[in-house]
Every structure is written in structure tokens, then in C-alpha cells.
């Protein structure tokens, strides 16, 4: 069932699956475990509903994407608001421990940023900043504090 579900997830547009596929699979597994415990009939009903939901969902997403493409070019139909905010969602490849440690190290980050002559450690400043400055803040706030060499530099 899990394999079928993951195969059907490929029916969705790629930009959608990049954002939601892992989370959808995790939720599906949790719900399917619970329904399995409730009995075969309930599980079967759940499985059919899930398959129909996935197919209709995929069709709806393709329609949304196509409609968006009529009015826009060279960009994803997924709104920028859907994209993960690295200050609130861990970027791929970072361990949970490193990520939350970096987020909870404002002093280190502030010290590091002060060296560049700007004080950009407030979330509000991040929101108001230009894309280039946002990138700089992100690098300073999330990636640099956990880099072993940069971490050593901030401790000095």
C-alpha cells in the first residue's frame, strides 16, 4: 500500500511533491496504521478514499498549475508563501540538533553579523530586507554558526 501511495504521488506536479510528498507519506503511514487497527473493512474504505483523493488531488493540482501558466511565465504555480521559511523550517540536509542549536544562538549570530557592519539578527529585519540581504542573513543565522570553522571564529 505504501509503495502504491508513493507511486501515485508522482502524479502530482514536481513543485508540489518537492514541498509536500514527504509529509504526505508520513501522515498517510500514521493514518493507515490506525485504520488497520480498526479492522479490515475500515482499512479498505480508507485505502479506496486515499487512492481517489490522491488521483483527484493530482488532477486538481495540474489544473491549478495549468491555469497559473496561462497568466504567468517562468515561475512555479506554488505561491512563494508556501515555500518553507528557513527560519521556521529546517533546510534539507541539516540535522534537527544543529538547526535548533543554530536558531537558539542569537548572541553568536549577532557577533558574527556585527563584524560585517550590519545588525540583522531580528526576524522583523529579515522580513523587511531585500532578497540579497535575506540571503546574507540566512547564511549568517543558520549555516555559519554550525560550520565548525565559523563556529570557532565566533567563539573567539
Amino acid at each position, binding site marked *: 500500500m505504501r509503495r502504491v501511495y508513493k507511486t501515485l504521488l508522482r502524479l502530482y506536479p514536481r513543485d508540489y511533491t518537492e514541498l*509536500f510528498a514527504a509529509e504526505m507519506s508520513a501522515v498517510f503511514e*500514521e493514518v493507515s496504521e490506525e485504520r488497520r487497527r480498526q479492522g479490515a473493512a475500515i482499512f479498505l474504505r480508507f485505502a479506496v478514499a486515499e487512492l*481517489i*483523493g490522491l488521483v483527484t*488531488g493530482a488532477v486538481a493540482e495540474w489544473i491549478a498549475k495549468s491555469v497559473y501558466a496561462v497568466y504567468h511565465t517562468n515561475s512555479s504555480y506554488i505561491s512563494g508563501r*508556501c515555500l518553507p521559511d528557513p527560519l*521556521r523550517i529546517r533546510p534539507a540536509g541539516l540535522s*534537527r540538533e544543529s538547526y535548533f542549536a543554530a536558531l537558539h544562538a542569537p548572541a553568536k549570530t549577532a557577533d558574527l553579523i556585527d563584524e560585517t557592519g550590519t545588525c540583522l539578527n531580528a526576524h522583523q529585519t529579515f522580513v523587511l530586507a531585500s532578497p540579497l540581504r535575506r540571503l546574507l542573513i540566512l547564511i549568517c543565522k543558520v549555516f555559519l554558526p554550525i560550520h565548525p570553522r565559523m563556529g570557532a571564529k565566533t567563539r573567539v
Partner: protein
Amino acid sequence: MILTSLADHPRHGYALIKDIEKLSDGRVRLSTGTLFGALRRLLGNGWIERFEQEDTSRGKQVYELTPEGLRQLQSELDRMRQLTRAATARLKMREA
């Protein structure tokens, strides 16, 4: 229903499915495809936002209402209240 479910506190996907089932007395059982399609639209409208919770064993993404989402929920509630009042008034007129 998703906005209502998120009204008291943030929830992750599985908790949303369970809560909506409970809210509707078991009448609404969302499939994951339906739920995440709706979440995508709500995120796009800026009515909800997601974040990762530190205090969960797995890296679950949690959804919460934004101030804009809260306003939307309140205006939807006002609309439903108005509709209920109108329906009640008409039923009373019919009975009278």
C-alpha cells in the same frame, strides 16, 4: 474546517485529520490528498503558515493560523451567524 481546527493551537497533518473528524462527529474524513491540496491553497493565501517544532521526536511540520487567517475565520463565522439568524427568523415567521 481546517481554519477552525487551527483556531486554538497549531497542529500537524495527522492531528488535523483527527481533529476535523472529531469536529464533524466522524462525518468528514479527509484524505491526505484533499488535506494537503487545501493546505497548499491556505498557505498560498497567507491564511496559515508552517514551522517545525523542536519538541517532537520526528521533524513534523506544524501549521498555524496567521492574523490574516484569523480574520478570515472570523468573517466566515460572522457570515454563518448571519445566515443562521436569517434562517431562524424565517422559520419563526412560518410557524407564526
